[in-house]
């Protein structure tokens, strides 16, 4: 039983046929990869002067400190803000008072449906394009608002995923609303939410690249300077993409770890893309297909 629900265990003839398919597909993949590498080579993308800059200590330092570290700092600042905002909005959406619940719902739905880039450009102009730091804060505030709204939804789903008996028992022993939330529901909900929150970090980190449009500091800015100076666009993009991919893979690995440790065999927490969207069931991918 290798391929699960789709195929029965293959018999001898099928195994022979699969062997032919394997050879054909392996050859075509190899041919395609070879063609890509050959085209890069033919167009002088592998020459030493195009890659040398990425082994020069001075530039590597700029790439790591002014690039990667700055990007991580932007994503980190935005995520701290997003967790705070998400907590406030999430608790607001769970409130029993209509006048708290509805504004929280409105804010969450608004910022989830608006493209981050639109928000970023708007904030950039609002902060003043010429003002120093406006590009940086446009990225951070836009990511805070968007991810805060998503985290609010994750928090709500996390709290609702705690078995109802927990809060009933807490009320029964005479706890107040705040106590039930803080002492009983939240500690359990955080465990359920943690993998989804880490997956959201991947989204936030990827979206820092949108800062390219508002000339914010970070990886995209540094890389643009490098490829304008050395005329090595393709190598520069490959390097910056690898850095993003590496950090994201580490985050995904952490999310899987947290899923195993805190949630176990249960399905990862999933949320809808919008308030009116279809109800998302569980999926095997940690955190579901997030973009």
């Amino acid at each position, binding site marked *: 039983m290798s*391929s*699960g*629900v*789709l*195929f*029965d265990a293959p018999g001898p003839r099928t195994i022979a046929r*699969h062997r032919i*398919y*394997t050879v054909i*597909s392996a050859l075509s*993949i190899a041919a395609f990869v070879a063609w890509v590498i050959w*085209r890069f080579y033919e167009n002088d*993308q592998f020459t030493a002067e195009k890659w040398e800059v990425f082994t020069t200590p001075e530039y590597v330092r700029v790439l790591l400190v002014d690039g990667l570290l700055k990007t991580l700092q932007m994503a980190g600042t935005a995520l701290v803000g997003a967790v705070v905002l998400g907590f406030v909005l999430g608790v607001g959406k769970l409130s029993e008072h209509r006048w708290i619940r509805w504004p929280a719902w409105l804010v969450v*739905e*608004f910022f989830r*449906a*608006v*493209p*981050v*880039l*639109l*928000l970023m*450009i*708007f904030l950039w*102009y*609002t902060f003043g394009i010429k003002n120093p730091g406006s590009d940086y804060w446009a990225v951070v505030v836009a990511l805070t608002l968007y991810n805060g709204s998503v985290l609010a939804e994750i928090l709500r789903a996390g709290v609702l995923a705690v078995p109802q008996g927990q809060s009933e028992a807490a009320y029964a022993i005479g706890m107040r609303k705040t106590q039930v939330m803080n002492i009983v529901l939240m500690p359990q909900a955080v465990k359920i939410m943690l993998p989804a929150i880490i997956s959201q970090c*991947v989204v936030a980190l*990827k979206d*820092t*690249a*949108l800062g*390219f*449009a508002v000339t914010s500091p970070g990886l*995209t800015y540094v890389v643009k300077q490098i490829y304008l100076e050395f005329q090595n*666009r*393709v190598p520069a*993009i*490959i390097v*910056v*993409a690898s850095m*993003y*991919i590496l950090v994201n*893979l580490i985050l*995904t690995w952490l999310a899987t770890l947290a899923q195993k440790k805190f949630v176990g065999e249960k399905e990862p927490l999933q949320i*809808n*893309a*919008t308030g*009116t*969207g*279809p*109800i*998302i*069931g*569980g*999926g*095997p*991918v940690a955190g*579901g*297909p997030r*973009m």
Partner: protein
Amino acid sequence: MEAVTENWDLYFRGFGYTLFLFLVAGLASMLLGTFLAACRVGPIAVLSKATAVYVTVVRNTPLVIVFAFFAFAAPLFGIHFRWLDVHIGDYDFTSFYGAAVVSLTLYTSVFVCEALRSGVNAVPLGQAEAARAIGLPFAGVMSNVILPQAFRASVPPLASVQIALIKNTSVAAVFGMAEATATMRGLNNNYSAGVPLFIAFAIGYIVLVELFSFGAFRLERHWRIAR
């Protein structure tokens, strides 16, 4: 407010481009994503592994980087989209449009692949075993039992992916498309009318997202199966 009221034509043209980007890239990403998913869940280990690597690489790359990579690297492979020069009414579909659609399609299709795969994995193993036990051939097991359930289970995540695509079309603004986000940026330069302009364009996106979302919700409810 006059920034919007004086420029309704630009506003609707911007969202027209957004919609055209979404429709073509959405359809193309569904096709490519289905192909990727077929490779991913298929019995050929080499294809499955290669697709897994491709999906991991693309889904962890920021969309802006995918756009940039395609813009910089595609000419090396002789892909220019210079042949693309279609004008329909007010709309011009040129090389920028072609590059944007391809970038959005490449990026979105890996999420489509993951959504479809999660749908296949949502079908309980017992369903396939029961279908085989009553003597259905492979084609029958697939077309009558597995794929209908897998497709229905993947409607909600697919809807999420396509909603994200609607919002992601905004990235085309960075690469020369005059769609809604670029239009807002342009009007901001001329009018410096921040908040009303932003609200107007935000509402445009919200309308698109909520309409699509509502449609997906109706579909999902229509096709839902009792488990």
